[in-house]
């Protein structure tokens, strides 16, 4: 061994000894001292998955509610709120399913709750039922008119705007503000009771709009309406392919 080191200059020999010693220590630490669980990432991941799976559940899911509240569930199933989970409004209820008497889910009766979904907001999709919470029966609790488990208007609405609020508000600031809905739509009485199965009519032809906007329109409300020559103006299209009748875009 001594002979081996004599082949190198003294400083190099020392260096080799130090490096070898470090290598041995390294091997001992890596393979001997560090526990397997710290080295094996796969085992750590399996552990993490187990921990993740064991986290407490707080929302029980709508099947759990149906087990006891069968009647409400059946009512809800037929109404417009059929796709809502009970916990959407009543909050997390896993604790309630485990101890029904002690833990009661909340009943959001305050007036601020329903507008979270049903307040008018232009970003909401067209056709979603929206109201203006300031103007809509102020200070009255929502549930005093609407059953939240089967929501529908309490009385047959007289005005179109009760359901078609977005269109009504849009029309109210448009050039068509003076026109009643029935000027263009024939509304069967039954539409107010079964809105989806009986629908109002819609204008079908260019000539319909032409009654007011045609060059030689005779309708007495059409005196100041912008006039076009039906034969010349956008002949390939029907009017509402370019103009939205509830808020016509043409500015004078």
């Amino acid at each position: 061994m001594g002979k081996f080191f004599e082949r190198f200059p003294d400083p190099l020999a020392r260096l080799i000894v130090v490096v070898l010693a470090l290598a041995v220590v390294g091997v001992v630490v890596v393979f001997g001292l560090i526990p397997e669980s710290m080295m094996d990432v796969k085992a750590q991941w399996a552990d993490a998955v187990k921990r993740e799976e064991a986290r407490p559940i707080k929302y029980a899911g709508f099947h759990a509610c149906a087990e006891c509240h069968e009647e409400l569930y059946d009512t809800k199933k037929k109404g417009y709120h059929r796709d809502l989970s009970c916990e959407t409004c009543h909050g997390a209820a896993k604790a309630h399913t485990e101890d029904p008497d002690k833990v009661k889910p909340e009943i959001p009766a305050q007036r601020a709750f329903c507008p979270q979904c049903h307040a008018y907001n232009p970003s909401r999709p067209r056709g979603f039922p929206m109201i203006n919470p300031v103007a809509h029966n102020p200070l009255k609790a929502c549930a005093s008119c609407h059953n939240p488990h089967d929501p529908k208007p309490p009385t047959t609405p007289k005005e179109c705007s009760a359901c078609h609020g977005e269109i009504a508000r849009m029309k109210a600031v448009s050039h068509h503000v003076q026109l009643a809905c029935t000027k263009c739509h024939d509304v069967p009485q039954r539409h107010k009771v079964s809105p989806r199965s009986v629908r109002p009519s819609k204008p079908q032809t260019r000539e319909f709009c032409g009654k007011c906007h045609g060059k030689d329109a005779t309708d007495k409300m059409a005196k100041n309406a912008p006039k076009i020559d039906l034969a010349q103006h956008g002949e390939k299209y029907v009017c509402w392919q370019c103009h939205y009748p509830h808020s016509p875009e043409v500015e004078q």
Partner: protein
Amino acid sequence: MNGRRTFLRGFVSVLLSGGAIGGILEILPSKADAREVPPKGQKWYGFGVSVDKCIGCARCMEACKNENNVPREPFFFRTWVERYITRKNGTTVVKAIGPNEEQLQEAASDKSILRSFFVPKLCNQCASPPCVQVCPVGATFQTKDGVVLVNEKTCIGCRYCIQACPYGARYLHPVTHTADKCTFCYHRISHGLLPACVEVCPTQARVFGDLNAAASPMSRFLRMNKIHVLKPGLNTEPKVYYASLDGEVR
């Protein structure tokens, strides 16, 4: 002549040994790039978002915070909803909405609005996740059903993954000081329940399910809609699929 031969021999042996070391350490590029095909006959979770159906009620954000103990402060989210307002002059304003927050009411008469809508966002659970690639300690990983999780026992809170996520889906948990993000409610889905946000969504704007299932709300969602994902150019292969997504949404 002799010098050239020596050089060549040395060169070849360096190449070979480099390859051998690479092979042993599994750092060969071909291995790293190999894309895993979603395994058949096993769960491979995906998420669907119908932008057209979202009403921006923030029930999902509320439920997520409840279910997963996300801090209540309004800048820690596992899922959040953005409100887009595109005006006629071409500008688009994006604002994350808050739960129980009075939203600013643009009048219907505001003619400068061209279109406006809500976009729910969450971790995209990418099939090739950048956050997993950058984690220096292997604390974030993909489970065999395709969900990216964080091992909070080994996470050192270096925030590298938070930087790397192109979707801004991660945050540093102020209590544990580890990275945290949406897990698709892994504790719920592994027990056959829906993620909390999907459970409470009143308009079915959120859909969840196994992408391998033949018939499920998720596979129907993918079949019946025009689908887009966020930032497809990054090749992260997100598993959160969007229907009717506007081009302004990144």
